[in-house]
């Protein structure tokens, strides 16, 4: 069975649905091809305690804003599933579930998308499969002794899954910090191997840090405005947790909870793990970067007369780190959690669309093949591109580009009148 359609969106998560809404508003026929169900990764690849890192009010999507009773709270995973499912239903997103893409090829003026549930011919393709699908596990994982149980965050659910022995968590971004904290609270001995990380306080001057970042314009900085976009796209996720008590989850908080901090996991020699001696510098760098952000916040607050309403507050204390050990006998470690991020995996794309690291080649979401787009990657068009709250802006922009392209190639379009055409989310 072959289905012809102007636009195929691969993936029905936040990015795919945002694009679907934008195309619906423009009366452009399309389908979403989803390997599972809407919000699949939130249903199947997130740990039980995970909440969004951004507050509830920061879940604006095209045509949607949070209207619940707790705008400053942090949504648990099941509510994110409900949010995205309800969002898709609100405009009858044409999702083809349980449809896994196997390949996409250009054939004349069409893209031929082969799935396990039929073939689609589309003028334009939007890849919205997300940035977090395949864990990036360092090569030294293969050198760990056989007794060490290894797990990546997308397979972790809760502490009961692991035996009671000591845990080494590798990576101090949001995932690593949260899992180290949860496993420590479960009574286990926990070491956290800390590489490059981005430290943030949950709140500053009485407001959520994301409110400040939104207010001062950090989150809307564009990809062509930052000096080194490749580096900006590589940055690990923010060292934050969404919790009802709005607590901090920086290295000081983790150390106070009894987590042992060590440097980046740099090598294995026999049964000995070796940790980098760079911890002090990475902590100092993160503190300095945080200081620069808080300086910017203070400057904007002063300029806009916010000092009275949001009084200047104390700066977080410098990160304390003991003279760290650089080796540890792995025979004393039961589990290693690889919170080391994700790598791009697009085996179903033609190789010329990818760079030598396997990432999609694109400029602001526009791929190198005409009519192909990508959406939802970290800092794709702007700093919040991979946030629920940020993907809509990119989708709106790309939908305009895509529409122009369809017009240029005279693709068939439905002409249903729709009063909300071109309406932009507030």
């Amino acid at each position: 069975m072959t289905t012809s359609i102007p636009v195929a969106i691969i993936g029905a998560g936040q990015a795919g649905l945002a694009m679907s809404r934008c195309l619906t508003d423009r009366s452009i026929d399309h389908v979403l091809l989803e390997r599972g169900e809407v919000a699949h990764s939130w249903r199947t690849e997130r740990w039980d305690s995970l909440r969004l890192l951004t507050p509830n009010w920061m879940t604006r999507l095209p045509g949607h804003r949070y209207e619940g009773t707790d705008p400053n709270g942090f949504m648990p995973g099941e509510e994110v599933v409900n949010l995205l499912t309800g969002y898709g239903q609100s405009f009858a997103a044409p999702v083809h579930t349980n449809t896994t893409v196997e390949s996409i090829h250009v054939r004349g003026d069409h893209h031929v998308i082969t799935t396990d549930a039929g073939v689609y011919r589309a003028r334009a393709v939007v890849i919205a499969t997300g940035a977090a699908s395949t864990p990036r596990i360092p090569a030294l994982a293969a050198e760990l002794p056989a007794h060490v149980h290894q797990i990546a965050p997308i397979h972790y659910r809760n502490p009961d899954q692991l035996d009671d022995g000591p845990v080494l968590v590798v990576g101090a971004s949001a995932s690593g910090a949260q899992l180290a904290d949860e496993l420590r609270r479960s009574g286990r001995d926990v070491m956290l191997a800390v590489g490059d990380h981005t430290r943030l306080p949950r709140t500053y001057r009485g407001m959520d840090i994301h409110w400040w970042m939104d207010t001062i314009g950090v989150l809307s900085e564009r990809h062509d405005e930052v000096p080194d976009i490749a580096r900006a796209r590589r940055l690990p996720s923010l060292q934050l947790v969404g919790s009802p008590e709005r607590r901090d989850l920086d290295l000081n908080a983790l150390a106070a909870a009894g987590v042992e901090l060590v440097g980046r996991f740099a090598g294995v020699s026999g049964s000995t793990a070796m940790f980098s001696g760079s911890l002090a510098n990475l902590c100092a760098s993160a503190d300095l970067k945080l200081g620069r952000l808080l300086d910017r916040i203070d400057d904007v607050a002063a300029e806009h007369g916010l000092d009275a309403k949001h009084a200047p507050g104390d700066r977080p204390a410098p990160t304390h780190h003991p003279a760290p050990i650089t080796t540890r006998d792995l025979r004393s470690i039961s589990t290693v959690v690889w919170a080391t991020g994700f790598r791009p995996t697009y085996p179903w794309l033609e190789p010329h669309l990818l760079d030598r690291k396997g990432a999609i080649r694109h400029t602001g979401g526009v791929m190198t093949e005409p009519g192909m787009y990508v959406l939802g990657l970290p800092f794709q068009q702007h700093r919040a591109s991979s946030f629920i709250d940020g993907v809509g802006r990119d989708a709106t922009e790309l939908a305009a580009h895509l529409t122009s392209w369809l017009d240029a190639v005279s693709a068939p379009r439905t002409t249903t009148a729709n009063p909300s055409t071109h309406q932009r989310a507030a």
Partner: protein
Amino acid sequence: MSMTETPVDNGVNVEALLGAREAMSQVPEAAAFVWKATSTWVNGAHSRTSFETFFGAGDEQSHTRRFEIDTDHPPVFAADDNGITPVETVLAGLAGCLSAGVASVAQNRGIQLRRVDATLEGDMDLQGILGIDPEVRNGYSGIRVRFDIDADASDDEVRAVVAQSQKRSAVYDIIANPTAIVVEVA
């Protein structure tokens, strides 16, 4: 970022470095360098190591002339002190690498440097190399670097330059992280 009347000049050609970076990101093979040294034992703890060629940018390269370093041990080790100890060359490498990094990063950020002094100390327990205590490692148990920098920038800007130079330093990485070493006999 400080604004100055005269152009910032730390003696670093940032344009050339950024050009090389761009070129090597397009052609990663050109970024593959091999550094080379040859040494000859003189007598006792005294050796002389020379440096002339290296490989990089896809071709054999040369220094403008041949350089030599003598290494030896001091009289406290009953040696002739014909040069610094090998472990002190490591400190020289670290100081040189971090300082070069400071100059480059400062230049790139428009910060004029007037003075960059560094004092380095490496802690070593000789019970390791003398085989007295197998629990003690041979190498440095810790290294401290103290920079004294005079520059047209705030304290935090200077600290950020020093932090970035560590993140991009080859010798810092060599010391902080394990490296595979193969030693053969011809």
